[in-house]
């Protein structure tokens, strides 16, 4: 269950890869949609911690274009519903995430991302 809320918090951490290492790009993914309970307070509280353009871009890679390119000033319920779906209900089950800088591939299998590095890649 790599959800976009988590994807938004992951950066490449391979040795020496310190710039342009976020957001990771999805590759060959299969996704599942699962309902999650809605909590407006949580979403409002989480908004400041999101990198908005990265979220919008990642959602588009997964075929969801419901979010506006710029984070709106007015946070209404309709917007929060969309945000809820994008952050919490789209699960990437298989595929990979690729670093835009060093091209390191982080595989996703059974909904779990493999973010481990080999010994020589650890910074």
């Amino acid at each position, binding site marked *: 269950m790599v959800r976009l809320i*988590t994807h938004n*918090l992951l950066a490449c*951490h391979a040795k020496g890869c310190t710039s342009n290492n976020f957001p990771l790009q999805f590759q060959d993914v299969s996704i599942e949609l699962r309902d999650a*309970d809605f*909590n407006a307070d949580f979403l409002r509280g989480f908004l400041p911690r999101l*990198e908005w353009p990265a979220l919008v871009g990642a959602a588009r890679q997964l075929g969801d274009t419901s979010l506006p390119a710029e984070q709106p000033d007015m946070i209404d319920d309709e917007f929060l519903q969309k945000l809820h779906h994008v952050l919490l209900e789209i699960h990437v089950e298989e595929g990979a995430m690729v670093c835009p800088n060093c091209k390191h591939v*982080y595989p996703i299998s059974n909904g*779990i*991302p493999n973010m*481990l590095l080999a010994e020589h890649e650890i910074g």
Partner: protein
Amino acid sequence: MIPTPDLSHLKAADYQHVYEPAEDTFILLDALEEDADVLRNLHPRICLEIGSGSGCVSTFAGKILGSTTSLYLATDINPHATQCTKLTGRQNKVPVEPLLASLAGPLRSRLRHSVDILLFNPPYVPTNSAEADEAQQDADIAGAWAGGQDGMAITDILLDQVESLLSPRGRFYLVAVKQNDIHGICRRMQEQYGLKGEVALQRRAGREHLYVLRFLRQPADT
């Protein structure tokens, strides 16, 4: 009383590769339960558990705080553990998000000063350092306990990252044993990072003298 998470989906075969909750797990659950009101009042948005094993602790945190009030991230180096963590979350209706990673690895840069509750029940048993290195490489059951010199080889690395992870009101809960040098850990966190450590709970369990240490930022005005 918050019930211990339902682990009935995990079988003896799982516990050949994944740490089965034991006294060290339970003392951490007890410490969290004692602090339940304070933790709820933090309105945590991000909980991060390092080394989640069966997933019991993160799931329990989710039961205290509510399944929708926070994001529950959990890392482990052991692929069996990340799988069990996912299943335990699901079994108990807490969406715990497992990541196969060492310590906070790929989360560190984005979670700078963002983690409200950080949890670690580390491999704390003193072993020789080759044994700990090998256990880290193998990423199987020995990685649950083999802690190298003073049992601190793995914990030491995380201790140097805690301040950069914790949010302004964030808290860190660490399981330790006497041989880890409880006072040394607290002194160092205070001197190097200005994090105040205290013993949240301690008890004897068989041969082990177990502690849960709780670290907080100093209030700005003291």
